[in-house]
């Protein structure tokens, strides 16, 4: 049992009319793993999560979650998992405690276990002082932490999260992740979708989705190491002029302005830096710093989506 994947997806497909939302998607997630689904709008992230949650039937392929087939045994799947959609159903006119109690009843959590579990979940995410507060009076960050606590009260073996921290400030976000890591350490498996790549860096492994398929799937470190070319960060107060000066350099595959300069991806690798420096010098642009830097997940992502879009 322990060697079986917590989630196994094989050749999964789902169409909506002419749109292939999920297109022969395959991946496996080990127990205790934090697995991220990353991709542009319409890449199939939410559809995949909904299929795994047993709320949407696939057209083809199979998905097993916590040992249960999502098509044949959707009810067993629902008892083994928790699914937190983008808008989690909290009751604004119930208190924090009452919301958790409601979900505990729904999942039939025994009364004695419920108390212990609720106290622990709320303590880890710093919500203990707010147990009597109405959910409607909580900040966005605290609402998300309460949603997570509700989703976790029945000890799911697999947790499915759809962009869980959108609009949540970094301090609350750290509490949110703290709670997740505690439960991962106990063997729970988490699949989360995210649009923020600083957040994707926290996952053990990532699948980059594009038009319903996984175009890359690996650990953040290996994804970065495997990116073709090199990323050159140029620090300059004249970022717009630098962008224009570098735009037609043949080696440049991606170029964008950031707050303190430009970030350039060159196909030739680290050797491409010299040509960038020369071009900027020729254009008379003051450069405070120029260096080859480790790619961010965002660089990997943009490069691989661009490559996938170039294919017929």
């Amino acid at each position, binding site marked *: 049992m322990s060697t079986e994947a917590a989630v196994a997806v094989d050749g999964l497909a789902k169409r909506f009319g002419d749109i292939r939302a999920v297109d022969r998607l395959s991946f496996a997630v080990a127990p205790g793993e934090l697995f991220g689904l990353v991709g542009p709008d319409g890449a199939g992230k939410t559809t995949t999560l909904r299929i795994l949650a047993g709320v949407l039937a696939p057209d083809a392929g199979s998905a097993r979650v916590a040992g249960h087939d999502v098509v044949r045994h959707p009810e067993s799947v629902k008892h083994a998992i928790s699914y937190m959609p983008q808008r989690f159903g909290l009751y604004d006119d119930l208190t924090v405690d009452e919301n958790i109690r409601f979900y505990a009843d729904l999942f039939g959590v025994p009364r004695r276990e419920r108390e212990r579990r609720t106290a622990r979940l709320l303590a880890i995410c710093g919500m203990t002082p707010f147990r009597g507060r109405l959910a409607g009076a909580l900040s966005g960050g605290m609402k998300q932490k309460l949603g997570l606590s509700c989703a976790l009260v029945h000890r799911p073996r697999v947790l499915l999260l759809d962009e869980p921290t959108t609009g949540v400030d970094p301090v609350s976000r750290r509490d949110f*992740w703290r709670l997740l*890591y505690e439960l991962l350490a106990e063997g729970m498996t988490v699949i989360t979708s995210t649009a923020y790549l600083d957040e994707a860096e926290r996952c053990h492994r990532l699948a980059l989705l594009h038009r319903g398929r996984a175009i890359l799937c690996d650990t953040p470190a290996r994804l970065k190491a495997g990116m073709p070319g090199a990323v050159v960060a140029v620090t300059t107060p004249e970022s717009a002029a630098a962008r224009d000066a570098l735009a037609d350099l043949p080696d440049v595959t991606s170029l*964008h*302005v950031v707050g303190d300069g430009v970030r350039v991806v060159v196909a030739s690798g680290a050797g491409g830096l010299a040509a960038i420096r020369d071009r900027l010098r020729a254009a008379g642009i003051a450069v405070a710093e120029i260096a080859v830097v480790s790619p961010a997940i*965002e660089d990997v992502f*943009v490069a691989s989506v661009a490559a996938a879009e170039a294919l017929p």
Partner: protein
Amino acid sequence: MSAAGEAVVVQDLVKRFGGFTAVDRVSFTARQGEVLGFLGPNGAGKSTIIRILCGLLRPTAGRALVAGFDVTRDPEAVRARIGYMSQRFSLYDDLSAIENLRFFGGLYGVAPAELRQRIAWAVEMAGLRGRETALAGTLAGGWKQRLALGCAVLHRPPIVFLDEPTSGVDPMSRRQFWQLIHRMATDGVTVFVSTHYMDEAAYCHRLALLDRGRLVALDTPAVLRTTALRGAVLQVQAPPTAETLAALDAAPGVLGAAVFGDGFHVVVNDASAVQDALPVFLAARGIPCQAVVPIAPSLEDVFVQRLGRRDAESAA
């Protein structure tokens, strides 16, 4: 009148709601063409400052000049010179893209002769060609966001306020959006952004860190990363469990620890001392530790240290 090149001048700005001080003697200036980010937990004063600068809320004390006009004495002149895009994008879902643009163009008083040309510009800028008649409610996040930006700047405001502009928008669209913002900045538009995401903060020329109404730091992302953190950051390769986290929090010289992927970011007083002592400390508690290496602080490390725990306190 403000000095040349200064788009916004804020001096000793104060806003009180009853006994609560939402903005507490804040002063700063923003240059023409600058992209300035506001970071801070909920309740730090970000939206109150933005609402004052939009001429929607009168300050209790101090003054603010926007495009040369005083927000208290001349709020109408201020409002005519700003564009505002909210995180909900404030579009009419049951109107088409082009109808939304026409509606906002009328609202902002764009002359009919100019409106046609401005709408064509917005459609081009937002990459909406071919989708002009699609209902706004059916557009994917990235298009919706660029349409909202188009609506907010149809009247060519010299100053634009963006409230969490890419909340829930995918990475490709976000990068595209920021390239549009930087082109506007190059053309001289001053842009204010409030955000919770460090991905987004890195696109700003300067960042203002706000804490309970006070401005605690204002500088470029690079300077904030290198100087605003008290202490240094170590990357610790150890099992990402609750036990490790508790041990790190209790370790001597550790100011704070957070899980990052399969390891931790640990903020410490003295990097070299802790770097040597930490593996021994963890080993004594039965926790294997493969590596401890100093790393450059991230903006998030700075944010969490300088602004941490305020959300919970202010909510209590």
